[in-house]
């Protein structure tokens, strides 16, 4: 596996599944993609209604956090891909296995889920 492909794969898996702290409007640990999802929901809310009051700020807070984590993970994924050398394929496979495990284990903690404080990866996005 090339370094570029490994980097993209690791990054995608991390963005989709790595539990990271919600820095603002938390607390909780969710994947960066969920922060983007929440920002998107707030954005849709604003587009459908208005950005008055805290709506615009809420969009910025969630999308900003998502972007911050995405950039940090992109850098980390690049570093990992370079250092792993021949182990890149195995590392990506391991990461994918962890993502599968995260679908079964409630490893995420979110105040935004309607019914569960601890959720599996599938439940986070469901």
């Amino acid at each position, binding site marked *: 596996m090339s370094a570029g492909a490994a980097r993209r794969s690791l990054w995608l898996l991390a963005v989709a599944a790595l539990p990271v702290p919600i820095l603002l409007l938390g607390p909780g640990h969710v994947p960066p993609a969920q922060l983007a999802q929440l920002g998107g*929901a*707030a954005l849709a*809310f604003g*587009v*459908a209604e208005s950005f008055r009051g*805290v709506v615009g700020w*809420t969009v910025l807070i969630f999308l900003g956090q998502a972007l911050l984590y995405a950039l940090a993970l992109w850098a980390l994924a690049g570093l990992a891909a370079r250092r792993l050398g021949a182990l890149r394929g195995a590392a990506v496979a391991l990461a994918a296995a962890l993502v599968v495990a995260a679908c079964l284990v409630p490893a995420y903690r979110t105040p935004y889920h309607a*019914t569960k*404080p601890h959720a599996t990866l599938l439940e986070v996005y469901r």
Partner: protein
Amino acid sequence: MSAARLAALALVAVLAPLAARAVERTETRAPCAAFDPLRQPFFGDTHVHTALSFDANGQGTRTRPRDAYRFARGEAIGTQPYDEEGEPLRTLRLRRPLDFAVVTDHAELLGETHACATPGVPGYDSVVCRVHRRWPWLSYVLVNGSMLDVREPQRYRFCGDDGARCREAAAAPWQEIQRAAEEFYDRSAACRFTSFVGYEWSGNPDSKMIHRNLVFRNTAVPPHPASYIEDRTGERLWQRLRSECLDAGIGCDVLVIPHNPNLSDGELFRTTGSEGAPLSPSEAELRASLEVLLEVSQHKGDSECRASEADPLCGFEKLPFATMRQSALPWTWSAPTGASFAREILGEGLREGSRIGVNPFKLGLIAATDTHLAAPGLVDEDSFVGHAAGRFTSRTEVPPLPDNWWFNPGGLAGVWAEENSRDALFEAMRRKEAWGTSGPRIVVRFFGGFDLPADLCGAHDFAAQGYAKGAPMGGDLAAPAAPAGAVAPRFAVWALRDAGTDDFPGTPLERIQIVKLSLAGGAVREEVFDVAGGASGARVDPATCRPEGAGADQLCATWRDPAFDAGAPALWYARVVENPSCRWIQFACNERRVDCGAGAPDGLEACCDAAVPKTIQERAWTSPIWWTPPGP
């Protein structure tokens, strides 16, 4: 039979028919078997939210007005969190039923909440409702922050032109509120329970809380609740109440209870109208005629007086922030400005009364819970489960501590009425013969007059003489027969501790104080007098929450104001204070066996924070008695 007893009987015989006639019937019901012309104490809750309120709904409350009234009457209800089968994981039940309650769901978003929860209702598929159902907490942040915390709220687009669709959708929950109040009102002669129709008008301009609860006297109510979205100022609300209720010719009557001035940052009781001009006498009159009671204490803190060294008891249940927006941003916390506490507000009332001849803030005092769990009267410190009213949710799990440390279980309203009926309770509230407690069922009577005898405490006809020779709490001192400058009023106050239940006895009383506010030279002077009981050295052991030391089952005193100035407007109210007891957080920390020496577990840090109050002195506040100097 002694002459005194004969005189007392004669007095009662004279008063009884007067009092009986004093309750004006506006509804059809059986007369109450327990009717007392000298009035009885009743306890209730005038501030209750259910799943019909948008915030409660988002926080996972599923119980509705019927459940709230069932609960108030002593039945058990389930509450959040719920499991996947929809079964509640917690059960709540009052140790003692209430005598009355008012469900006061937020008028704002009543229709939107219904639309978002009811397939087929227009708006159900809107973005707002989709977000609300899928991410209730996000929806809570967005909706509160965009709709209610702003100065010029607008209905959502999905509500259609002029918001008509959502106002129409509000009809169903408004009917549900009325039906529930009717179903649980005991119209039999037993008079076990009274339920009122009500709602909360919840303005929050710039997150400054100017909320008001409305209580309707009977079943004659306006077709729609007035909302902050349409009527954005208190003035607009009162005008609407006048046109759609008082002057509508439908037999409608209403009173308004402002609350949480501690979170208003001075906005709730300004001495200017919405246009910035000073209050006019007619505006002041309208306000005073509708706003007769102030909720002095509730789940979101105490509003009696600003914490100060001059009166150490004012440190009770103080919030560390000035607005709910600040609560989420600890680095912005500050003390509220303006008239944000009852004493400041009542003092402003004296000042305005002197300026324009009408006191716009002539308010009696009551307390309530502001529960968002449909659990009226759930005030016990030892079993507090949170009230979900302050951006703290137990929607999906039972948190380590039931609430943020700065909140509390809330209080109760006490009312002296002839019987437990809507008319009698409503009239009692209107004449301000009401008091508030921070939770315990402390009973307190307070009379003032120039002719009250000094030995009233020993009299078996305390109340009869109090009414005959003075004014009860909420009233005005009548001008004395002698020139006012030559005499001073005497006050008589009697308090009975909350006996509690066999398993959970109440706490003895420590003291009674009389708080005096008077106006001199344009400045309001505050004085606090200990009139009965006093510091006894009683304490509570935090480790066991067991009280230690002596206290009183009841206290009584007569007290003559030593510095009465007949030319100065003044008011007096009584504060009854219990011995120290554990605050809810101490009970919770003990139950969770927190060992601060080993470090506080996650979520229980407040247990080991020395700045967090762990003990309290529960209390009751009577409505004031006013003195207005005779005109020239």
